[in-house]
């Protein structure tokens, strides 16, 4: 088989590229992190990585560009994130392809291996999670496998860095496999026929021909840029002609043949587990999806997270930081220092006044929000790494179906509790446009991000547990109703529910810590400047008298309709920048006793539903397009106030005690 090594063809100065590819959730990002020293989010569920990440590896004076790709089960893409991976192999000159396999699921890995071989790419194969495979009694003869495929095979346990020296030794010296297998005769003829019509590219013509015969639509665009319409038509007619000879879809026949080839290899190298593991982790995994126990486990998990984030983070730590550290020490000091070194009252106020950068922006960002998101990210990291989250999809599938989604959509929705911006990106794991729009809408509308959630929980917890339940219930009902209506209104298709469930694992403390730190760092970098910007805007508006004017203008809405003090308008204004900032403003008001209980609940429901923050808005524009983004905002803005107003009237009418 022709070997397509790009080592010598590319410019000498250009860095050699190494692509990491493999099935979802096999540890590509862990290995990427080890190779490049660059942290990318590592979690225990498929689809953590939806974008390509680049990093550098220095090895023996050579620099390599390592490319981490979204996981895929086949190189004939069926979703957006899978296409990204195939396109890297197609468009980038890759010097070395590193395939990472989950050792215990070698069959599925070989299915991809065979496609890499078909592409004629030099590669090496990592058998990761070797420990898990062994503990299940799986035996892999990696020497024999290496003989059959004629490429380096490297067993690793990436999370413990086992096997890394061997990987480094081989990473720059991959081989082309001489393993080959044939499809049946008629198909082979068609492959040859199509291959003759194809342009040169980074991967073999044979592999492109197979993809095209498998009906790969995602290749069309690339093809149009390379060859004439007439040739594409000719290819199409070969496809039609060949398909007519078979009862079954060509793609299915091709996949079956590949799996048969994989099975032939497996027979001589793989001894499967005799008995399925049934330890405590497996039992937990099982119970967490039980129709009854699953709900109880979910409730307990929520309660624990609430205790940790809502009580420990949002009350205890916030009180400590805000009242002691900032209230008693930092802010008074800052005011004193400012009094001494800043002679102009205007500037002094900018830093330490009512709308001061230190006394407002930093106090909000560091004292109120940081402890909340810190605790939240720890709890969230533990959940992510345990493998529990995808199991929620099993519980939620039927409910999500009513909203035009399927259980898989719970992943971006839950990630939204971390950060709606990132979650909007993760909507890529969904298959249809309709699903992506619905998820994006629901995220922007009703899913509070960690910072906002923490502030909300902190405020509500100081009222009563009943208030927490009421708030969460109202938001969930609204999400459900809007989802249900969106399903009816937004055209397009639903997709099948088909989701891989990762094994339940005990989270590694080091990964939780690194992940939490990375996220806190990201929060500080992204949020603090916006907090400062928001504060400056408030400060200037205040100085120019605009704030009063704005409060007057919004009085009918804020005061009459929502029943809130006029000052709450400020929170909605900065809420445009970041929703958590808006919530933090309400938090401060509540602490000063400027809001009664019903006002707290109404304002929180409104700010939760309120327009997405600027970063999220940009992400929506990027992912869904400007028109869709505007439509979403145009819906959410009036809807948030309408819902808040309705709630105000209902709560007042029934005169509820919170």
């Amino acid at each position, binding site marked *: 088989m022709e070997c397509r090594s790009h080592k010598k063809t590319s410019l000498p100065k250009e860095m050699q590229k190494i692509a990491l590819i493999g099935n979802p959730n096999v540890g590509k990002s862990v290995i990427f992190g080890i190779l490049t020293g660059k942290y990318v989010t590592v979690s225990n569920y498929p689809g953590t990585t939806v974008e390509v990440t680049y990093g550098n590896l220095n090895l023996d004076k050579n620099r390599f560009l390592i490319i981490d790709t979204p996981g895929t089960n086949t190189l004939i893409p069926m979703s957006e994130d899978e296409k990204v991976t195939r396109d890297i192999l197609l468009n980038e000159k890759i010097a070395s392809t590193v395939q990472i396999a989950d050792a215990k699921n070698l069959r599925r890995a070989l299915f991809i291996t065979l496609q890499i071989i078909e592409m004629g790419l030099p590669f090496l194969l990592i058998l990761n999670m070797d420990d898990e495979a062994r503990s299940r009694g799986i035996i892999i003869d990696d020497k024999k496998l290496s003989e059959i495929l004629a490429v380096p095979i490297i067993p690793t346990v990436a999370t413990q860095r086992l096997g890394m020296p061997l990987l480094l030794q081989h990473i720059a010296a991959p081989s082309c496999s001489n393993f080959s297998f044939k499809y049946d005769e008629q198909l082979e003829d068609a492959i040859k026929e199509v291959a003759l019509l194809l342009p040169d590219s980074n991967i073999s013509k044979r592999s492109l021909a197979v993809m095209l015969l498998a009906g790969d639509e995602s290749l069309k665009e690339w093809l149009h840029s390379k060859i004439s319409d007439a040739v594409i038509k000719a290819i199409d007619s070969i496809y039609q002609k060949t398909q007519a000879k078979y009862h079954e879809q060509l793609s299915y026949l091709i996949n079956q043949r590949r799996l048969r080839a994989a099975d032939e290899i497996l027979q001589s190298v793989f001894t499967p587990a005799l008995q399925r593991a049934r330890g405590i982790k497996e039992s937990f995994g099982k119970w967490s999806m039980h129709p009854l126990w699953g709900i109880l486990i979910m409730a307990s998990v929520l309660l624990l997270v609430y205790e940790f984030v809502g009580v420990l983070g949002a009350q205890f730590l916030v009180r400590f930081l805000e009242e002691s550290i900032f209230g008693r020490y930092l802010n008074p000091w800052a005011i004193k220092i400012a009094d001494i070194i800043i002679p102009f009252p205007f500037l002094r106020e900018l830093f330490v006044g009512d709308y001061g950068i230190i006394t407002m922006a930093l106090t909000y960002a560091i004292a109120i929000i940081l402890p909340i998101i810190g605790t939240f990210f720890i709890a969230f990291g533990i959940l992510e790494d345990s493998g529990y989250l995808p199991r929620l999809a099993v519980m939620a599938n039927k409910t999500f179906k009513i909203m035009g989604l399927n259980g898989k959509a719970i992943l971006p929705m839950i990630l939204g509790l971390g950060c709606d911006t990132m979650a909007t990106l993760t909507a890529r794991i969904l298959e249809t446009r309709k699903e992506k729009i619905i998820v994006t809408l629901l995220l922007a509308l009703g899913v509070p991000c960690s910072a906002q959630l923490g502030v909300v929980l902190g405020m509500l917890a100081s009222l009563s547990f009943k208030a927490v339940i009421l708030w969460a219930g109202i938001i969930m009902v609204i999400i459900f109703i809007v989802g249900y209506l969106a399903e009816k209104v937004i055209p397009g298709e639903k997709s*099948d529910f088909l989701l891989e469930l990762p094994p339940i694992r005990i989270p590694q403390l080091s990964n939780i810590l690194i992940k939490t730190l990375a996220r806190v760092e990201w929060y500080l970098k992204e949020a603090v400047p916006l907090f400062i910007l928001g504060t400056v805007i408030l400060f200037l508006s205040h100085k120019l008298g605009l704030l009063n004017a704005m409060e007057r203008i919004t009085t009918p809405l804020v005061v009459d309709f929502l029943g809130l003090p006029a000052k709450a308008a400020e929170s909605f204004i900065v809420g445009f920048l970041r929703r958590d900032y808006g919530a933090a403003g309400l938090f401060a008001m509540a602490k000063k006793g400027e809001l009664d209980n019903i006002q707290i609940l109404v304002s929180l429901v409104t700010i939760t539903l309120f327009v997405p923050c600027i970063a999220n808005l940009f992400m929506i524009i990027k992912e869904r397009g400007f028109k869709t983004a505007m439509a979403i905002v145009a819906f959410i803005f009036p809807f948030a106030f309408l819902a808040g107003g309705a709630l105000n009237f209902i709560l007042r009418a029934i005169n509820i005690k919170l």
Partner: protein
Amino acid sequence: MKRPEGRQYGWHGGKMKERDQRIDELLELLWMMGEEGLNDLKEFLKRAEDKEAEALMAEMIEEGLITTDKDKIRFKNKGEKKAEQIIRRHRLAERLFSDLFAFEAKQAHADACTFEHILSPEVTDSVCAFLGHPPICPDGKPIPRGECCKKFQVEIKPLVQPLTNLRPGKEGRIVFITPKHHARLDKLSSLGIVPGSIVRVHQKKPSFVLEIDETELALDEDIAKEIYVKEV
């Protein structure tokens, strides 16, 4: 099983076949009226779509299939057995088309009407065993039991059944998959779910979860229903 009069199963060309089929239809009608508790001759003639029903009836009486008594019409033993077989073939065929190929009820019925005349006893019993000796047809009417069903009453396990029929913890080897969309097959096969693979039912509620090799996979019940397995 001894093959009764070859005529009713084979193709005998033109006229002969047509006449046999028309008699089959009348026998079928009489059976179905019987299920409703009717045996009125006038009603029978009214429902018969055949214009020459009366002439055909005369032939049927001559052949000893039916008998008339004033305004009543009844099966004779031979006719009843024959009707039972026709009904059995028809309803089994309906089940086959609707369960396996997911045809609309109307289409399944139309095609079953053709099949009821041409299935041999061997094929009929094979279909019956294949479907797991189903007791009722898709619209709920009973399927007359065949010899094969009686034999299998002890071990009633069907040979091939949808994955959803397996109890949690049971394993099955995939025999075939009948997806609604082709894209499903591509997705399933890229996860290793193809004929020949062994899958295990992990749970059925609240969502269906299966295990293949060391992978747990959650999926819609609708998809699981389309995966036909042989229990191992």
